[in-house]
């Protein structure tokens, strides 16, 4: 089986192309660094099965962050037969730098020149034949989003050739590189990189390459070359000039008269005052839409299932059987009726935000605020993703550079209420107390995140790096892509949470049928009833919530022994509802999130976050218990 790797700079459309080739498996979005781990897929070309690997974007083979490192590791470790180098035609000059590096690997490769439409909008017209001649590599123009040229690209995979050319620098530069390369060839072993590229990267000061030179006889040669070549800057400038040359020789640029729509939109969305007004308005609107859309559906479904329950009660006379059937039915009803009306629009809208390219703009706007929390603007991407689901939010920390930044971002992102926790905020506090409470809770959450960030910044040692971010153009996602993406995010809920819900519901009914609840509640009474003033029965719900947060609200009314969620206000007063919501908003992340934290920042970090969030939740819920009777 032929194995094909998609490699290109961040946000050049690798995942979009991958999804076109192998079906929707890789989440694509419009910001650099949307893909942080590799995805494999398969497809047929004619009768041959090929394997396609989507790798995180990298600006160069000398990696900068963990996501890029992942790509380079995969590139050198797995058996990749053909490299498809995706080049964003609209930013061709800098994209070709990666192409030049890939050429030196001497493996079969093809260039997929993507975003031909966007380049033309920018007035860039590329002569494919000429580019092909200059590079000595097959070039296939594509528009991955629309699937144009993809078939042709696949057909070319079988004919992929080793690059015919290599990047040659000026005489003087080549002379210096050669000295280092020849020494490295004889003295440095266990390097998978081509020797010349390896030496160039070392001269340019790329640490992981440089360190191989330590304590070898090549070290003085490396230092000499560095001196002679201005610490590698001469090489960098020549390579850049070469790329500009390639661009100028293969592309025509027409001046476009009108100012692009993009800079007009940016004028508002990135305005020093209105930019923030728009940002808050957008988020308030999102919560408003999800809430006003969700509540009527929740009402409707509750009514329908009340009827079904009544029907069951009059027809099934065996009490145990009735409890089990009712538990199962309620589980399904609650999942489709209560969770989905909130989850679906939420995840859909977050997908829109990701795909149009607004997130990098928020990163720009929020950078200075984020610095107060010891992180920079890029962490905003994690936070916004966190409103959808905490797991990708934690994974997104891979595009951050320093340990401190990652730690703080992972910590704070786990405090952002994910769509599953939003079900409680909207479906409980919002449903019974009104929309203002929803907004108040989200604002309170942001406030706590800010305070926690300020504290974490003080507690953790180390410098905070600064933002360097490529702002992508706005792109209009197709409805189809958005729906597929939302489905991709939600299917976990359908396949995992619903079965868990049904089982959970049945367990709950059995517990109350056999009167086990009094024993279980003994464990929870001291904390929940004693400290927080909540019914002890919510303890079981909170435990299930750690498994999957979507279960929380749905299991709440069952645990309270009610037949419908609309009756919760008969056993919990508004102050208790608020206390419960605050607790759910902050307490222990779900197991999937803990696993993600563990993977990204280690076991110690995951343990700390788990305990810290529990303490934080208890503390804030306790304060709510004392304060809320005064306000609700």
């Amino acid at each position: 089986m032929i194995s094909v790797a998609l490699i290109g700079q961040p946000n050049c459309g690798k995942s979009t192309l991958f999804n076109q080739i192998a079906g929707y498996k890789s989440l694509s979005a419009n910001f650099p660094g949307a893909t942080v781990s590799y995805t494999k897929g398969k497809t047929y070309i004619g009768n041959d099965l090929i394997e396609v690997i989507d790798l995180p974007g990298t600006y160069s083979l000398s990696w900068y962050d963990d996501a890029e490192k992942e790509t380079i590791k995969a590139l050198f470790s797995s058996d990749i037969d053909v490299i498809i180098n995706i080049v964003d035609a609209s930013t061709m000059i800098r994209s070709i730098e990666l192409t030049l590096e890939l050429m030196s690997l001497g493996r079969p490769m093809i260039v997929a020149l993507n975003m031909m439409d966007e380049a033309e909008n920018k007035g860039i017209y590329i002569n494919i034949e000429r580019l092909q001649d200059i590079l000595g590599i097959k070039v296939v123009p594509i528009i991955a989003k629309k699937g144009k040229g993809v078939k042709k690209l696949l057909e070319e995979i079988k004919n992929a050739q080793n690059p015919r050319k290599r990047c040659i620098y000026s005489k003087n530069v080549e002379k210096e590189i050669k000295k280092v390369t020849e020494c490295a060839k004889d003295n440095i072993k266990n390097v998978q990189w081509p020797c010349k590229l390896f030496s160039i990267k070392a001269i340019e000061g790329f640490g992981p390459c440089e360190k191989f030179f330590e304590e070898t006889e090549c070290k003085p040669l490396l230092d000499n070359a560095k001196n002679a070549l201005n610490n590698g800057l001469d090489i960098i400038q020549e390579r850049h000039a070469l790329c500009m040359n390639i661009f100028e020789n293969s592309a025509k640029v027409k001046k476009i008269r009108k100012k692009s729509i993009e800079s007009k939109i940016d004028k508002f969305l990135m305005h020093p005052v209105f930019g923030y007004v728009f940002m808050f308005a957008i988020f308030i609107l999102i919560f408003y839409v999800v809430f006003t859309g969700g509540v009527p559906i929740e009402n409707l479904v509750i009514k329908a299932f009340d009827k079904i329950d009544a029907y069951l009660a009059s027809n099934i006379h065996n009490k145990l059987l009735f409890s089990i059937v009712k538990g199962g039915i309620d589980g399904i009803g609650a999942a489709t009726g209560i969770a989905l009306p909130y989850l679906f629009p939420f995840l859909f809208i977050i997908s829109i935000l990701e795909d149009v390219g607004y997130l990098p703009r928020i990163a720009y706007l929020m950078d200075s605020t984020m610095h107060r929390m010891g992180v920079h603007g890029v962490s905003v991407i994690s936070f916004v993703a966190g409103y959808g689901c905490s797991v990708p939010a934690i994974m997104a920390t891979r595009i951050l550079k320093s340990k401190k930044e990652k730690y703080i971002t992972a910590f704070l992102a786990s405090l952002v209420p994910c769509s599953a926790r939003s079900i409680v905020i909207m479906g409980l506090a919002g449903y019974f107390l009104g929309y203002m409470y929803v907004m108040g809770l989200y604002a309170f959450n942001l406030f706590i995140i800010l305070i926690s960030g300020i504290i974490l910044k003080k507690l953790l040692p180390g410098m905070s790096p600064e933002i360097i971010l490529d702002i992508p153009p706005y792109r209009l996602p197709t409805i189809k892509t958005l729906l597929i993406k939302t489905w991709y995010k939600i299917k976990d809920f359908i396949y995992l949470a619903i079965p868990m819900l049904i089982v959970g519901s049945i367990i709950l009914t059995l517990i109350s049928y056999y009167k086990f609840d009094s024993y279980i509640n003994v464990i929870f009474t001291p904390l929940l009833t004693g400290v927080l003033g909540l019914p002890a029965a919510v303890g079981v719900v909170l435990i299930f919530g750690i498994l999957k947060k979507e279960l929380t609200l749905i299991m709440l009314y069952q645990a309270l022994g009610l037949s419908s969620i609309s009756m919760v206000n008969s056993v919990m007063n508004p102050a208790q509802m608020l206390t419960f919501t605050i607790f759910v908003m902050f307490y222990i992340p779900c197991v999937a999130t803990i696993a993600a934290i563990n993977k990204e920042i280690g076991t110690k970090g995951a343990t700390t976050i788990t305990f810290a969030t529990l303490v934080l939740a208890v503390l804030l819920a306790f304060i709510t218990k004392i304060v809320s009777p005064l306000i609700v």
Partner: protein
Amino acid sequence: MKLEDGKKNIKYKILSIEGGCRSKDRLIKLGLIPGSIITIERSAPLKGPFMVDVSGSKIVVGRGIASRIDIEEIF
């Protein structure tokens, strides 16, 4: 002068980028190389970052980085 002190919508040439080796590396990959021509498009309030245009790409750089990039106005 430093990028930090630059004015909007004027063409500048990058002269040099000071230390902070890893961030320098990323800047170079994004096309902010000594010799490149840039324009400052906007800067965020409260000591926020700068957004610069370099050959058609928009790059956001933090203020601390902007204070380590030497630029010169070109006519």
